[in-house]
């Protein structure tokens, strides 16, 4: 549990972060999104005291962060940055084992932990343990960066645009891996990014920042459905917002039971996103898809007309409310 109340950071006359309130529940993935210079990285660094705030309180697990020795505080918070910050003169294994070594674990424990993490992140030990950072590709280096951050099994993980420097394909792969890691490990993650798609894909809680202020926060779906102002709307993709929202909903939430007509020849698995379904309809020139389960057995039907009608109803109910 991380709780920020009225947190402010001033650099000289500039106010980088202006009296923000933010609560991140244990085990939740919180993404801070905004254009560069909006104060999102500063907010992140105030949590592990790389930057000391000017005003306000930050409470970590019920205790103000001043109560912790900054060095000990940082050893229990994982940290990942865009440039990886790996030590170029150390091997991959030594880089990953850094925090356990600082915490004076025994050599066997460190070795076992490094091995475990390398396997977790898809880095074969024989191949990578003795390599140096400059021998790695961008994606491999960032995997090592994540492994290093997880080494001492911290409850909290801070990530500052960790995938910003990677090519699109590697970035999406690592996003998927991070999502599945998070599903297993349930860390409290604070993730800074300027890539809204990345944030929508990963976050439980989305925080949009601008000029040091929090403009809006909530679940990704809530923000997509009700953006507060044109700025949030433009960040969320303007006209493409509908598709982004569709990407967050599953086909099975929109399917109807099979009608009297023959099922469509085009099939889509029930756990695909609505966005993928719409894309398929466009590609195959159809307005109906058969929804199938994992054994490829039809279990329902998805109709374009129904999806649109549902959206209209939703909008209507919103107006009434």
């Amino acid at each position, binding site marked *: 549990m991380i709780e920020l109340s009225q947190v402010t950071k001033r650099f000289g006359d500039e106010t980088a972060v202006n009296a923000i309130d933010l609560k991140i529940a244990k085990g939740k993935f919180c993404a801070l999104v905004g254009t560069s210079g909006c104060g999102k990285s500063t907010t992140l660094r105030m949590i*592990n005291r*790389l930057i000391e705030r000017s005003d306000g309180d930050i409470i970590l697990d019920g205790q103000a962060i001043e109560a912790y020795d900054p*060095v*000990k*505080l*940082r*050893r229990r918070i994982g*940290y990942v*940055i865009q*440039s*990886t*910050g*790996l*030590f*170029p*003169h*150390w*091997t991959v294994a030594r880089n990953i084992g*850094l*925090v356990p070594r*600082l915490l004076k674990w025994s050599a066997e424990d460190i070795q076992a932990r490094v091995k475990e993490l390398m396997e977790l992140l898809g880095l074969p030990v024989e191949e990578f343990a003795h*390599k*140096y950072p*400059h*021998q790695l590709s*961008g994606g491999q280096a960032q995997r090592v960066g994540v492994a*290093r951050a997880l080494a001492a099994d911290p409850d909290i993980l801070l990530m500052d645009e960790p995938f910003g420097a990677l090519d699109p394909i590697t970035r999406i792969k690592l996003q998927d891996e991070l999502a599945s890691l998070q599903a297993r490990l349930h860390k409290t993650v604070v993730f800074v990014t300027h890539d809204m798609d990345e944030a929508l894909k990963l976050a439980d809680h989305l925080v949009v920042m601008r000029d040091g202020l929090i403009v809006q926060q909530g679940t990704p779906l809530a923000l997509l459905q009700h953006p507060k102002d044109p700025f949030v709307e433009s960040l969320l993709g303007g006209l493409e917002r509908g598709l982004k929202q569709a990407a967050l909903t599953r086909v099975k939430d929109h399917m109807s039971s099979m009608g009297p007509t023959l099922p469509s020849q085009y099939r889509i698995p029930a756990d695909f996103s609505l966005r993928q379904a719409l894309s398929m309809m466009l590609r195959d020139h159809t307005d109906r898809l058969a929804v199938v389960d994992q054994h490829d057995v039809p279990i329902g039907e998805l109709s374009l007309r129904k999806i649109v009608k549902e959206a209209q109803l939703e909008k209507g109910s919103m107006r009434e409310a």
Partner: protein
Amino acid sequence: MSLLDALPTPRLGRGKHPNVVLVSLSVTMLAAVWGLDAVSVAANRIVQATGVSAMDAIGWPGVLLASLLIIAVGGLAYQPSRTNYWAALGVVVLILALMPFGLMVAGHFLIDPELPQARLGIGAGYWVLLFILMLCLIELRLKLALRRFWPVVILSSIGLVWWLCASLWLSDLALIQEFKARDRQFIQAALEHILLVSVAVSISIVVGTLLALLMRRFVKLQKSAFALLNFLQTIPSLALFGLLLAPLAWLAANVPILAQLGVSGIGNTPALIALVAYSLLPMVRNTYIALEEVSPDTLEAASAMGMRASQRFWQVRLPLALPIMLEGVRITTVQAIGLTAVAALIGAGGLGTFIFQGLGQAAMDMVLLGALPILILALVVDAGLGALAEVLRPGGVR
């Protein structure tokens, strides 16, 4: 990743273009063998020596062998490939190893055993050949992308061959005769030289590192310190020795403890002070830059992982700065080896003594007896510390 990394790098063996450097070097070597005097002969150490061509010195079989080997280097370089470069390296090493035997043959032909004072001098052609062979070695090392460690190995084994020949069979050589006439002096002078350089460099490593650390702590100090060190560097070495003479003599006269410690206007003390003064700038500059240039991201990561300031310095900043700091030590040491030669003028001893004595007596061989070891010393230190710096970059980080 920079744009340069994305550009295709030229690969060995792909281009069929001749290696112009090696081909022209080998043509120059041929010209030196055929056109310049290989050796010189003198009846004693004072009279003007007369030059002797290679043909007269080692006979036609010798010249033929030398020419064939040199043409082989050029020929191999005309069609470059990795194999051919290795072969050329082999031939260059062979020539270097055979050269002292050339001198032996020349001595056998040219020196009359009846004349005990007669001596063999090394001629222009020989020096040029030696110099160009070194250039060939450098070019081949670069083309074969050898680590710095290899030239050290190659050169020290060639040095061993030369040493054996010199001590066993080359007694006619003027250089050897000069050495034999004053071997004890020579060894003592060489030791003095090395001692003076080591003490001066050690002091400047300690003082320089401390100064660089202070400059990092107190930013205001930085400008004035660099200004002072730059100024020191601009004083000509002889002038600095002169400037130190009066104050040190006064100190020695007025502070008895200093006089007992051996401080005086001439000799070791002013030499050491001057050497340290000159060494400080490269030392401080490299140390300071090395420590400052460590990537801020890496350092921030170190803090963020929970390293204490001292852990961050000793485990991250210092090891990453070490190769560049060592570069400073290398520059400093090579510079000090040369400067110490000048220090002989104010009675500090060292190999410079022979240079100045030789100049006074117009005996060029004696000048060489001082100058050659200084050159070799500088080359050895340069190669050795360069190789060490390379070893300290783990995984070949650049």
